[in-house]
């Protein structure tokens, strides 16, 4: 069941097979265990790195494989097909942590901080959100004060994906005055004295990905770890969001597609009042509604991806895609649980997890409300 074949060529098909097989062999058999454990083995990063999955669309000189946006689409979709948003989010935390390094870093910084992550030897995280607020990035409070060759960092971050075991965090800090011009990005190695994981957070969904609260006490970070100029951080963060929103829209579409597929299977098998659920018109119509939402959302997201690929500015449209996809995902997962009845509420049922995993998608990477603020500024 593949649509818009024209976006995908031979290399995309082969990559899809590779990722699907990787998921089938290395992820699916263990997913339930990892979900319960609240993390997956670090080994998985290395396994994915070995076959180049972490380096999609990174320059060859840093150990990546130049590709196009639809290779990224394929990777995101097939990882999400594992049925665990957490595995996908945790394994790919580099996809939000590395782009600022690539965009703002010096060749030396890129050489230091990118290849080990693409090989899966080191784990990278992005630290922006603070206990005091996530949406209002321009007002973040973690402070970095220059002291000779170092910055002395004090403050805290929260809800950081891969935060409990990251080796490096691309950290948003305030080096200057108030507002977005005072924000800079530092790459922090987590063995730096003063860095600590204050809490491993327990979540509604995305169980297989570890999420942490981080605290920094007089943490001395070499000034050479500053990305770009002081004050360039806000730009680096915003620039990053475009792709993150695309990935989240893709995760939403795929999560919804899985929920739909599960529901179709279940409606064929489950009987009530002497016939299969599929025998009830109300069920069939519900499934059609779900399928329509998935189809429309997927096609729209693909179209925006193609335009991003062509170099068009799609900030408004990708924000729309994220709102739409994450909303239909919530609705489709809700309907999927309903079709499954009480079983849909049980842990052993995939749609139960999809329902929980769906909820973060309209919050992370910028909430739907923030998306609407962005769009309204651009169109009104």
């Amino acid at each position, binding site marked *: 069941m593949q649509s818009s074949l024209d976006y995908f060529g*031979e*290399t995309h098909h*082969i990559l899809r*097979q*590779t990722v699907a097989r990787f998921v089938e062999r290395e992820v699916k058999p263990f997913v339930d265990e990892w979900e319960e454990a609240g993390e997956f083995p670090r080994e998985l990063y290395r396994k994915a790195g070995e*076959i180049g999955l972490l*380096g999609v669309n990174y320059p060859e000189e840093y150990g990546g*494989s*130049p590709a196009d946006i639809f290779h990224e689409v394929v990777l995101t979709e097939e990882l999400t097909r594992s049925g665990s948003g957490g595995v996908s989010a945790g394994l790919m935390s580099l996809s939000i942590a590395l782009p600022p390094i690539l965009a703002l870093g010096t060749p030396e910084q890129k050489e230091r901080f990118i290849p080990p992550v693409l090989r899966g030897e080191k784990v990278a995280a992005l630290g922006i959100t603070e206990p005091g607020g996530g949406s209002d990035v321009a007002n973040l409070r973690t402070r970095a004060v220059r002291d000779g060759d170092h910055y002395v960092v004090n403050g805290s971050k929260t809800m950081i994906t891969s935060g409990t075991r990251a080796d490096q965090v691309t950290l948003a800090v305030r080096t200057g005055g108030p507002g977005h011009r005072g924000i800079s990005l530092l790459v922090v190695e987590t063995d730096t004295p003063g860095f600590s994981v204050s809490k491993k957070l327990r979540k509604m969904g995305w169980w297989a990905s570890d999420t942490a609260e981080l605290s920094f006490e007089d943490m001395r970070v070499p000034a050479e770890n500053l990305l770009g100029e002081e004050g360039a951080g806000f730009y680096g963060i915003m620039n990053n969001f475009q792709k993150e929103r695309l990935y989240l829209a893709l995760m939403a579409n795929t999560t919804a597609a899985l929920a739909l597929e599960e529901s179709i299977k279940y409606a064929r098998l489950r009987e009530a009042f002497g016939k299969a659920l599929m025998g009830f018109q109300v069920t069939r119509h519900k499934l059609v509604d779900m399928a329509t939402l998935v189809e429309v959302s997927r096609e729209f997201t693909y179209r925006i991806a193609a335009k991003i690929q062509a170099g068009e500015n799609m900030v408004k449209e990708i924000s729309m895609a994220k709102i739409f996809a994450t909303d239909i995902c919530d609705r489709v997962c809700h309907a999927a649980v309903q079709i499954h009845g009480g079983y849909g509420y049980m842990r052993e049922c995939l749609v139960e997890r999809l329902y929980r995993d769906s909820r973060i998608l309209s919050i992370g990477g910028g909430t739907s409300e923030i998306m609407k603020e962005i769009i309204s500024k651009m169109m009104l």
Partner: protein
Amino acid sequence: MKSLVCLKQVPDTETQIKVNPDGTGIVTEGIKYVINPYDEFSVEEALRLKEKFKAGEVLILSIGPDRATEAIRTALAMGADKGIHISDESLNNSDPFVIAQALAAAAAQTEYDIIFCGHRAIDDDFGEAGAMLAELLKLPQVTLVTKVDIADDKTKAIVERDVEGGKETVEVPLPCVLTSQKGLNEPRYASLPGIMKAKKKPIDKKTAADLGISPEPKLRSNAYSMPPERTAGKKFEGMEPPDVAKAVVQALRNEAKVI
């Protein structure tokens, strides 16, 4: 070590196969195609031989319509060096004899120390092409191979093969034809760098005329049909266990005729 790997593109094992309405073949629309799994073992083994000898070549040979390039490209992405794609209407859907003749003609135009075939293709399940190819090339062959060791001087192979309930080890001079069986190895993934590199690897397209053959099939398929639909099972209820056991045995013997 130069290996020639014969490879077929087949419907994915998870594809639901349907026979077309006039019973002349299967419905091809919407089918996802993959490398025949046994041929994937061949590709992997050939790559390992090349790595072991730190020299040589892995050449992929496939017969099929245009879509088969994707299967060849996948093998190139795994690490094979070159492909030959024999694409000719007269060869599509033909019998194993025609396929073996085309493979033999193509093989004659190349250099190899060893030829790998899958021991069968999972779509039509003939399991004949490899054996016929060996005959046509007048080469020794070993079927159902699960382990391959090549002597350092590349004059012979020590090969393990499946036999009922065990293994047989045989020695065979090179060049030869080996047909791969499950258990031979665990095929590697086509890595992303491999996939991108494979774009630039050459695939040589050939027709029957290029091979100088105009083969006549020996078989003609008359009809395809689906196995009968499974009927509902029979329930034995409301009986004491010993009576159930008796009734089930009776049913298995007299109705299902399986014991």
